[in-house]
């Protein structure tokens, strides 16, 4: 029987369909202001015996009448499961998503040990990058490559999204190269993230998941800040934003089996 993993995040919705432990389908769409309609469109044509929902919209899914039972787990557990499945050797997971950053330590069994989450504001999340990329009038997906063009990043002190923008603008006015400012902004997130990782007791290998893991500059800085080597002790899935939905689907499979 097919099980679905559904991850409703603040930015995007992912669906993973699994059958006998094999991923048979993956879908993704932006969350928008109407997540329910987006989800229903994504589920079109998919049939399942069970779904597991995760992410901030998990309760939303549970309240829908989808014609099959829906269980929920938190995104912490989902990312832990997904990351462990992709990279069984990994011991720490970092997820930088649209609005949340989470760090979690994995026990050798793949269970979550300790975890940390960012506070209520958007500091250090994908939202921060999205917001600051606007100042450069660069699409957020190109922002990382652009920042890699910098070589002397200024220190950006403010982690508040609004104040960081002010700081960046005033650095521009002082004539600092924009690529350097962009690099500085990335660095401020990488530092903050490394702190969060050390609070859960960073043990390598580290698995970097969530949408921001697509960003080449964040990958490189994270590697520098943690001493993890990309491909050896720093693992990044091919589709990092699918990890939560994958974990949810895996949980569904384990519920099926029991």
């Amino acid at each position: 029987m097919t099980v679905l993993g559904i991850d409703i995040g603040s930015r995007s919705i992912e669906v993973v369909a699994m059958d006998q432990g094999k991923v048979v389908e993956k879908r993704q769409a932006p969350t928008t202001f109407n997540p329910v309609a987006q989800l229903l469109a994504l589920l079109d044509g998919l049939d399942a015996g069970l779904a597991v929902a995760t992410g901030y919209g998990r309760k939303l899914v549970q309240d829908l009448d989808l014609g099959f039972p829906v269980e929920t787990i938190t995104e912490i557990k989902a990312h832990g499961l997904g990351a462990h499945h992709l990279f069984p050797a990994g011991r720490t997971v970092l997820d930088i998503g649209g609005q949340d950053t989470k760090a979690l330590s994995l026990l050798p069994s793949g269970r979550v040990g300790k975890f940390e989450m960012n506070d209520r504001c958007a500091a250090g999340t994908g939202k921060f990058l999205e917001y600051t990329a606007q100042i450069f009038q660069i699409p957020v997906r190109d922002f990382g490559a652009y920042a890699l063009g910098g070589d002397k990043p200024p220190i950006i002190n403010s982690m508040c999204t609004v104040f960081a923008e002010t700081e960046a603008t005033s650095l521009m006015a002082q004539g600092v190269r924009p690529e350097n400012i962009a690099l500085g902004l990335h660095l401020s997130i990488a530092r903050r993230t490394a702190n969060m990782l050390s609070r859960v007791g960073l043990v390598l290998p580290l698995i970097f998941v969530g949408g921001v893991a697509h960003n080449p500059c964040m990958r490189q800085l994270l590697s520098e800040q943690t001493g993890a080597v990309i491909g050896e002790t720093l693992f990044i899935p091919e589709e990092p934003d699918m990890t939560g939905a994958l974990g949810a689907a895996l949980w569904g499979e384990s519920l099926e089996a029991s």
Partner: protein
Amino acid sequence: MTQEAYREMWENLNLDIAAHDGLLGVLGKFYGDIYMSQKGRLQGMEYLDFVLSEVHGLRIKELQDAKAQGRKIIGTFCVFVPEELALAVDAVQVGLCAGADAGKEAAETLVPRNTCALIKSFIGFKLARLCPYTESCDLIVGETTCDGKKKAYEAFSEHAPMYVMEVPQTKTESARALWKAEVLRYMARLEELTGRKVTAEKLAEAIKTVNARRRALQRLNRLRAAVPAPISGRDVLLINQVSFYDDPIRFTASINTLCDQLEERITAGEGVAPKDAPRVMLSGCPMAVPNWKLPYVIESSGAVIVGEESCIGTRNTRDLTDESGQTLEEMIDALCERYMKIDCACFTPNAERLDNVETMAKDLKVDGVIQYALMFCQPYAHEGIKVEKRLTAGGVPSMSLETDYSMEDIEQLKTRVEAFLETVK
């Protein structure tokens, strides 16, 4: 709530009637959502539902009647203020709650913005003329437990009849001497206010009254520890909160009745939560009425709270005052002794709290401890780090949360709490 009947009384207390109506509306809704919606509540809880529904009505009327008979009303914010002394001069002591986000903007004109929600709340209630308890007080007793409160009382004293006790911050011999001097100074102030003398006879009786209430709450705490838990943590929190403003003798009798019902439940093997529900202990800052946010989040995520290591919990009830004193002097010494056992985070060092938290977590066989600190509360935030280390070393999972009285972080809290429960199960 029969609000009309009390309107005149509220007007005489100079409350802002419109704002007060709003507060009662919110409180009623909140109470309904968080309490009345629980399944399988005990009959004994009806007493508490009644007390709470009449919290601004009947109980205030009782206070006004007591005042008419010449008794004085003493308001307090901390479990350090010895209630025995107030009872010994026939005064009524009420804990002033400070658990809601009311009058925050007004409060921020007297205290800095980065002050904990509890302090802002008691100031806000006063400035917004919302609390009939605050308005009924003849004396409000503060204490120097943390810098925030200490400085806030300076500003507050311009708006309320304030008296401040100096609580020492160490437990050395000289600190004990200071505390005794402060207890005697407070006693003199109460005698002056009421025109009555604290006698050995009166104090002995007061000590018994307060001990009896502590014993009833201790009994409740023993009973709730059963598996499956026979009563929700939310209900026990409410009981502890009510203990601060209800009449002590009536309260003690009601809680003992409730405990009898709990015993029947335990014998019948009935619980409010399934046997295998994760057992959680809360630890940290006090939770004044109507601060029920976190307990609600925890219990609606499937766990049951089986203990509160807090001033609205075991910190207030763990230790009794020795009842064997014969002379006034001996009784005062016994009181001082008892209050100096309080393991508030304001003490340095405060090793006994670490022991107490660990022992309690192990005795209650909890699956995890959730530490609760109000944002900007230095003492508990500092100790949170130490408590977490101690618990981890002892093999007890724990998590620290910092929050305030607003509702904007509720989804975040849910995710954190649920994820924590996933890791301990």
